[in-house]
């Protein structure tokens, strides 16, 4: 694999990963997948395919829910993060996450942004402020909120809230950013803003995103992975996968014959 010059360096390697929830359903079956650094990695497929489950395994948010059985490994920079005894808090600072519905915490915009770094022990006001401006600019939100940082975050529009959540994640300067249908509730203009932020961010971060439509998947994917009922059907470069899928089921889904 290392010999193939077109395959970039991987940041996360998922090896033979399976998860079963306590209701007995196997939500992921034997997934092996690489997520590449400095690329937009897209996970897509019909509802219930296990995309969110996989994403939540990457920052151990699955710890909170009733996972009955889990096997396989998830390597971040070669270290297994799915094992017991991993420092979950430190991991979540390296692997940030943006959710489908924006979740502004019940505080001001500034407090929302400072929350993560302050938890991590960062106190110096000057570096917090510098980070705040940088993160808001990266999330394409700076111009809209720079004069109202001390208003409650819920006062922002839905699209602004979502970009605030992105900025809040960026405040921790993570290595990986996970986004679970980040634009599902947004209008086309906000969606375009978030997508273009992602294009800029991928230079520095590893991005894994679950798009909310096939069209969006095709638009943003550098690499795409198609999931169907807990299995990884196909994984490849975005252009190739969407124009010339190898698997019939991928083709059916991409061309809109089902899903």
């Amino acid at each position, binding site marked *: 694999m290392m010999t193939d010059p077109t395959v970039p360096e991987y940041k996360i390697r998922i090896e033979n990963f399976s998860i079963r929830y306590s209701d007995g359903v196997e939500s992921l079956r034997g997934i092996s997948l690489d997520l590449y650094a400095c690329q937009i990695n897209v996970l897509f497929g019909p509802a219930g395919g296990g995309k969110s489950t996989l994403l939540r395994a990457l*920052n151990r*948010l699955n710890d*909170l829910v009733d996972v009955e059985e889990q096997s396989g490994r998830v390597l971040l920079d070669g270290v297994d993060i799915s094992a017991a005894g991993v420092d979950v*808090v*430190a991991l*979540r*600072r390296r692997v*940030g*996450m943006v*959710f489908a*519905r924006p*979740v502004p*915490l*019940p*505080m001001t915009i500034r407090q929302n942004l400072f*929350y*993560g770094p302050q*938890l*991590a022990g960062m106190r110096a006001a000057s570096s917090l402020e510098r980070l705040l401006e940088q993160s808001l600019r990266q999330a394409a939100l700076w111009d809209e909120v720079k004069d109202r940082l001390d208003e*409650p975050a*819920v*006062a922002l529009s839905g699209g602004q809230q979502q970009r605030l*959540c992105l900025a*809040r*994640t960026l405040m*921790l300067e993570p290595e990986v950013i996970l986004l679970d249908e980040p634009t599902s509730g947004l209008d086309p203009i906000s969606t375009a803003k978030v997508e273009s932020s992602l294009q800029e961010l991928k230079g520095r971060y590893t991005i894994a995103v679950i798009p909310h439509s096939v069209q969006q998947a095709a638009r943003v994917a550098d690499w795409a992975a198609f999931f169907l009922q807990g299995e990884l059907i196909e994984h490849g470069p975005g252009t190739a996968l969407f124009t010339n899928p190898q698997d019939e089921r991928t083709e059916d889904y991409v061309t809109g014959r089902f899903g």
Partner: protein
Amino acid sequence: MLRLWWPNWALYRCNNRDTGIVEREPIKRTWQEFLIERIIRATGVSAIAIVGLIILFLLREAVPALMQVTPADLLADRWYPVEGYYGLAPLILGTLLVTVGAAVIALPAGLATAIFIAEIVPRWARDLLKPFVEVLAGIPSVVLGFIGMLALAPLVRRFAGAPTGLTALTGSLLLALMALPTIVSVAEDAIDAVPVSYRNAALALGATRWQTIWRVVVPAARTGILTGMMLGVGRAIGETMAVMMVTGNAARIVTGPADLFLPVRTMTATIAAEMGEVAQGSTHYHLLFVIGFVLFLISFIVNLAASAVVFRETRRSERVMS
């Protein structure tokens, strides 16, 4: 009152679009809705009316005392009505001491218990603990008073080194115990209703479980938590029986927190103990109504303050939502 029962013609509609002829024929469900609306309105109006009548009654019985006793005498520090000492200060301070003591104990303990039940214990344990706590709210206060006299008072005497176990502290502890179930139950519901997405968001930012609870979940649930606290403290202010049984009932002037270890007498206990023996129509009799009115004012103010806080919170979030 007739207006209250008059059909509201706006609820009727023109049912012939083609001819435009207005036939005032009621829509099928309208009569039911009409009735229900009126019943709800009448209930609301009578609730307000009853409160108004209570105030009027209290005032009518209290005012004669104010004619007979000067304000200076009312604020004096000796309550001994048989000898003509009508100072209410010891009773008011006694109530404040016992209630504030109860609040200081019950508010943190209640919040901690609510967090424990909602966030820490597994789901099945919550389903067991919650009804258990709520049953505590139903124990008659006389029974709790008994427990206070027999179990709590000796403990207080031993640990505080006081000459008697029947002290303000004993009353505070017992009232705290009575306020707890309400506080826990309401606050737990509020905490439990905080969307899981808040928790996920905080955790994904690298918050620990404890940081998530303290900085995100509790602030998000603060309206409900405050409501629970208000209801709990409200119960403590008005409680009579248990307090009468364990506070020793000495109408002494309270000078400071050290008096926690001495007997006191509350306003509620005074009314309950003396109302049965007082000569109807006497100054003493009317004074008991003055005490009742003061008690009413205090709990009214507590409720008003608390709901002002809650109301401001909701108003702000509503404005922000739109």
